[in-house]
């Protein structure tokens, strides 16, 4: 296990996404070689998608307005990999931001300085270290990643740079240019189409805390046996699910699965993260209700390979309906949290050390 691949001097074997092949969770086992029929089906699918998008995305908005459900259904089946980068920009609203802000990205990268520069540099080589694009020290991958993160930390100095953003930016950069990736990051965090996600990274990580609260309650409602068992074993969502939200599954999940989740995430919003989380637990229900604390912690970070199959996991995820509860839980959280925050302020006043 030690020094794997570091000094063997041989070019590592890569999977179809450019990651060094791993012992486990490799997508190759899930993706059999395709038959002629499957190839034809894929070709048809691609033609449909091209028609839907139009040249450079010119027909997209029109199509979405006319047939939103067709779009939703097709996206849930997975965006064709060769169109992914473009479609992501269209559905996230980032393409509009880009067009409205010519020259801004360049300005941020070249002329501004950021207080986070050293923090970013330190994490660059620790972001997707097994991907060929990011492996070369100061290579094009690392430089783009640095530029996007630095630009964002200048663009929004209150957020700055927070660990985890690198995985999001790193994933985007595999499908689009620096400037496009930057604006997609802006679209997500500032909420171009869906609710803004900057709270995942702001001081106090308020949105992480809210999502953990919501996820915990949803899990207890839909999977009460797991909820009960987790209470007994003192497992709470921050021990396993905070990464799911902070990096939208890009930190430790197999890439082919992360991409499929991202397709839906960008079109439907963060609720897919809740749904996939619930589906994962449901899929592994029988194991999870049996395991003791330490084995649970391990399991929840290393789901079995068959649970990582998007064609099994995602349909299960879609079957959870969470919108209404998420809204209710959010209000409940805000109510409780408002009170807690106030009572803490009162308690802390006499000491005022910090």
């Amino acid at each position, binding site marked *: *296990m*030690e*020094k*794997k691949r*570091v000094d063997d001097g041989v070019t590592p074997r890569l999977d179809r996404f450019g990651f060094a092949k791993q012992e486990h969770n490799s997508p190759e086992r899930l993706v059999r070689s395709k038959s002629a029929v499957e190839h034809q089906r894929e070709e048809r699918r691609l033609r449909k998608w091209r028609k839907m998008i139009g040249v450079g995305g010119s027909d997209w908005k029109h199509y979405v307005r006319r047939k939103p459900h067709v779009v939703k259904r097709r996206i849930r089946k997975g965006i064709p990999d060769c169109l992914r980068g473009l479609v992501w920009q269209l559905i996230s609203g980032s393409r509009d931001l880009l067009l409205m802000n010519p020259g801004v990205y360049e300005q941020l990268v070249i002329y501004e300085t950021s207080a986070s520069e050293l*923090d970013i540099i*330190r*994490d660059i*080589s*620790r*972001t*997707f*270290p*097994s991907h060929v694009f990011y492996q070369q020290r100061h290579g094009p991958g690392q430089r783009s990643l640095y530029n996007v993160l630095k630009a964002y930390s200048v663009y929004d100095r209150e957020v700055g740079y*927070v*660990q*985890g953003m*690198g*995985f999001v930016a790193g994933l985007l950069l595999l499908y689009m240019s620096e400037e496009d990736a930057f604006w997609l990051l802006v679209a997500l965090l500032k909420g171009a189409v869906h609710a803004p996600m900057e709270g995942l*990274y702001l*001081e*106090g*990580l308020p949105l*992480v*805390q809210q999502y953990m609260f919501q996820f915990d309650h949803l899990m207890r409602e839909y999977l009460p046996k797991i909820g009960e068992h987790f209470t007994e*074993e*003192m497992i*709470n969502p*921050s*021990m396993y699910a*905070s*990464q799911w939200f*902070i*990096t939208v599954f890009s*930190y*430790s999940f197999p890439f082919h699965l992360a991409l499929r989740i991202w397709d839906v995430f960008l079109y439907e919003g963060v609720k897919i993260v809740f749904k996939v989380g619930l589906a994962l637990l449901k899929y592994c229900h029988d194991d999870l209700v049996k395991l*003791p*604390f*330490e*084995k649970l*912690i391990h399991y929840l*970070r290393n789901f079995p390979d068959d649970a990582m199959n998007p064609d099994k996991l995602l349909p299960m995820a879609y079957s959870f309906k969470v919108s209404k509860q998420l809204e209710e839980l959010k209000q409940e959280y805000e109510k409780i949290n408002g009170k807690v925050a106030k009572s803490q302020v009162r308690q802390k006043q006499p000491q005022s050390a910090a």
Partner: protein
Amino acid sequence: MGAYRAEDDYDYLFKVVLIGDSGVGKSNLLSRFTRNEFSLESKSTIGVEFATRSIRVDDKVVKAQIWDTAGQERYRAITSAYYRGAVGALLVYDVTRHVTFENVERWLKELRDHTDSNIVIMLVGNKADLRHLRAVQTEDATSFAEKEHTYFMETSALESLNVESAFTEVLTQIYQIVSRKALESGDDAAAVPKGQTINVDDVSAVKKGGCCSS
């Protein structure tokens, strides 16, 4: 959130936290100690990670439940919850980056704000293999540790230098405090049901034991 019970056999279960600035090598110290692995290409830790290892102290099996936390300041909002119930801490800095040593004081305060006063703290200067890049002198760290009443060791997770000793020392010290307290108070810590956190005069630890020894 105290220490937790586990299936395998042990006499004591101690919760230990790994803290310190981002990039000082906490995760590699943990993987070196628990799995004897080191990776130059590890990902930055998002949130918290966890691993365990049991060692023998005297004739007892002491199990360490070690929480590895994200180092970036912003993450303290969610990682400080994991300090609670910890009876030991490795406060790590990077001997090649002086700023990580300067921040030790803040980490220490953070730790003392959230844990029992009897917590065993080991100051750890990691990356000691990078001799030509050293920016923190051993004497400075030694005198800081003396002043703050913490233990101190320099380690290299890469070269496997002192990693074992650092963890073992912390666990042994905790063990001695717990067994001394138990002796003084005249009762056996084993009287506590398995899996519950007990407080032996400020030091919380778990002793796995029968329910009938009172």
